[in-house]
């Protein structure tokens, strides 16, 4: 009972006040037939020193991205995390609090969310944003639910170039409302606006990722227009770092902007916890899922923040809520808010620009190597290549040179047998890129 403060005397005194003889008496109403009459079959409890040893040994069985040079991306990115973030995230007034139901003693959490909403609205160019969702994939799915709620249409069009994880989750969520998910096929690695226009007939929304999962820039203006021509909403999926340098969804007319906030100061952590964001046009305020924080005043006119427009939410609205989501990703939203505050516009742009430059230098250096670009269009910080060798074998070889990657695209796109994805972030130095180039050239030779 590691974390119980009670002594035997405490327990005895407390039982006396309760008027019970033994703790067992407090459980007397549990029928014998459903009691567990044996100890739980678990390893015995360990003192802290032993627990730390055990966990350290497990952690050491992983090859971590800090020891290796990582070119793995595909939705989770090894970006630089300033020291301030870790320090602030361990302020326990933040991490040991719960959802801000009592506004007067939760102004810290509430103001963080308000600032997070503001930063997401600016980055995406949307009118407003909510307090965060579980991750990019569920943000996409919630976006589709919003579109279904708004249009009443049961067809959802998603470009096949959208992250396969997001599409998988979208299909799971769609099942609940019997929505039909239709994919706009890959045309040289991208979505084709004419094809999307046809598919969008009678659709609730069109979902496009830009740059897409294969690293390519889509044509968001034309695609957005195609969606709107069919009366469908346009849901833009964008990496928030890319938003620092690319035209934001709000500018080209998107109705909903969603994405994965992990690149904003959150470690890759084997897939979670991450951070979904959602920005919308003003018109959809009452359809947005999850928490929203608003500014108001108290009776003395002091500025303060509250959870607002709660009549959309499950704890008020129950089966008529816009989503069943209960809280948000509070601590991850805090990390992202601090990240953007620290980086500022120049730091954000620099993170994006260094990544894009690195990916292009990598592409140039691989010319004539046998690793050829898979698709022709302009690309950002990720590079899809046709590999002359088996992707698995390639991964094993690179690992011996201390390199993590590439991602085998055939795992996620059966039609892309022999294709790989390499991802470059600002953490990759020119020397590391050279090392990768050299290793790839050796493999190909």
């Amino acid at each position, binding site marked *: *009972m590691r974390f*119980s403060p009670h002594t035997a005397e405490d327990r005895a005194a*407390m039982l006396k006040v*309760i008027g*019970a003889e033994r*703790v067992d008496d407090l459980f007397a109403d549990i029928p014998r037939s*459903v009691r567990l009459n044996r100890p*739980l079959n*678990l390893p015995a409890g*360990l003192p802290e020193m032993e627990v730390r040893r055990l*966990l350290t*040994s*497990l952690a050491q069985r992983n090859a971590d991205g800090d020891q290796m040079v990582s070119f793995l991306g*595909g*939705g*989770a990115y090894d970006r*630089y995390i300033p020291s301030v973030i870790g320090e*602030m995230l361990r*302020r326990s007034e933040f*991490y*040991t609090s*719960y959802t*801000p139901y009592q506004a007067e003693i939760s*102004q810290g959490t509430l*103001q963080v969310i*308000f*600032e997070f909403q503001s930063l997401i609205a600016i980055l995406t160019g949307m009118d407003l944003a909510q*307090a965060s969702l*579980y991750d990019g994939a569920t943000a996409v799915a919630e976006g589709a639910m919003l579109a279904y709620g708004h249009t009443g249409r049961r067809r959802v069009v998603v470009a096949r170039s959208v992250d396969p*994880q997001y599409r998988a989750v979208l299909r*799971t969520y769609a099942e*609940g409302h019997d929505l039909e998910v239709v994919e706009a096929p890959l045309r040289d690695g991208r979505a084709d606006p004419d094809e999307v226009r046809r598919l969008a007939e009678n659709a609730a929304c069109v979902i496009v990722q830009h740059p897409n999962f294969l690293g390519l*820039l889509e044509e968001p203006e034309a695609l957005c227009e195609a969606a709107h021509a069919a009366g469908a909403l346009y849901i833009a999926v964008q990496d928030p770092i890319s938003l620092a*340098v*690319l035209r934001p969804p709000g500018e080209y007319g998107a109705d909903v902007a969603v994405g994965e906030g992990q690149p904003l100061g959150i470690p*890759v*952590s*084997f*897939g979670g*916890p*991450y951070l979904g964001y959602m920005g919308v046009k003003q018109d959809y305020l009452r359809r947005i899922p999850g928490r929203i924080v608003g500014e*108001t005043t*108290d009776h003395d006119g002091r500025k303060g923040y509250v959870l607002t427009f709660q009549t959309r939410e499950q*704890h008020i609205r129950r089966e008529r*809520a816009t*989503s*069943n*989501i*209960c*809280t*948000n*990703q509070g601590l*991850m939203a805090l990390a992202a808010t*601090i990240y953007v505050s*620290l980086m500022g516009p120049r*730091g954000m742009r620099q993170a994006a620009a260094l990544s894009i430059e690195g990916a292009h230098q990598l592409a140039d250096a691989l010319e004539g190597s046998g690793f050829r670009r898979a698709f022709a269009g*302009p690309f950002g910080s990720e590079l899809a290549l046709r590999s002359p060798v088996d992707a698995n074998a390639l991964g094993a070889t690179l*690992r011996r040179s201390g390199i*993590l990657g590439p991602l085998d695209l055939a795992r996620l796109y059966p039609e892309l047998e022999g294709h790989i994805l390499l991802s470059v972030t*600002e953490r990759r130095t020119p020397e590391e890129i050279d090392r990768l180039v050299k290793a790839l050239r050796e493999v190909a030779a």
Partner: protein
Amino acid sequence: MNTIFDEHEAGRGTSYLPEREIDLARYLPRSALRAELALPELAEIQVVRHFTGLSRRNHGVDSGFYPLGSCTMKYNPKINEDTARLPGFASAHPYQSEETVQGALQLMWELQQDLQEITGMDAVSLQPAAGAQGEFTGILMIRAYHRLRGDEGRTQVIIPDSAHGTNPATAAMAGFEVVHVPSDERGGVDLDALHAVVSEKTAALMLTNPNTLGLFDERIQEIAQVVHGAGGLLYYDGANLNAVLGRSRPGDMGFDVVHLNLHKTFSTPHGGGGPGSGPVGVKAALKDFLPMPTVTQRADGSYGLDYEIPHSIGQMRSFYGNFGMLVRAYTYIRSLGGEGLLGVADDAVLNANYLLARLRGSFYEPYDRTPKHEFVIAPPRDLKKETGVRTLDIAKRLLDFSVHPPTVYFPLIVDEAMMLEPTETETRETLDAFADILLGILKEAQEDPEVVKTAPHDTVVGRLDEAKAVRAPRLRETLGA
């Protein structure tokens, strides 16, 4: 307090990255590029002071008592925070090949096994991102189960009137019609009413046990028989598992699907409202419907991700789960062991009953029973009429004493409800001090009701105008606004 926008000064900032000039037009079409990016610019010290300042405007478990019913605000051990940040865990990329993440996979596999043992279920998925998503996962599996059997007519989910709001919201999100069943005078499911609503349309009953009144439904086996007899399944909302750890298992009570909240029972921090983690456990009959992937142990003893789940409902979120939370929960389970977990339930129930004993006679007790880890009371029935003081006022007055109020106005079936869950990690002195404060406020309400009705008085802001927040919405800041 200032916002980061108020602190902005053009040209400020700290360099975290190499500063060389890059012309993006060399790589990307100009038409794709963004013209302006109006984000605030701050020096590092401003950022640190700002967020330190904000943290001080928050109350957490580490700041003081937090008896928020249904949320299990127990102490969050600091070792968990260290282990989750070990480089081998924090820096592991989810697309790394299996042989390079054996430690992470082993941890997940063992946690799956542990949670099966703790809940009495046959298989566990760690994927759901939070309790509400665990519910959604479980209900989608139930839907898929009936459909695969050709049992398409099961369109209803039965939910007690004492249930969490997520239960009906989840059922609706999974396409079900919600049918409510009332509670009886003992606070349990009204069996006659249950008989009346179950039918060939029943897909499932969602139940929390002990329920949101903190009461164990002794007739759980009869309830299970009624639902199973009609061909429905039983869903366990694990929000209150802390009360029965090592004492009674949902699997043995007759439940077919359970979700757990690692951020409640297994001490992972609530984070100001997330990230949580909501693993789901199922009986063997539902194993083939689990979300993909689960973690498996291969014949050679190594660990891998299993995507071969015949009727899987699919994927619930990106990748495999809130791994950082899984590391914390695993650390907690290894710290406590089986005996320690039993002790958690014992002390949680002891603390709740002790606190209730201290308040008994002064507050209204809707059910005269022995609660488990939490209990529901209300102010004396004539207080509102005589003084105008409501539960909300009492809750707000508690803020002046640096304790977090209980959950209020929930469950919905008790008028002016206050739901208290002290958890096992609080000392007797803390419980005594809290009882004294609460009894003091009750006295104050009778003697000087205005003080209570206008509380809080000592917080950084007073009661906030929620109507104004909706009437004149201000949901974001803009630079230079």
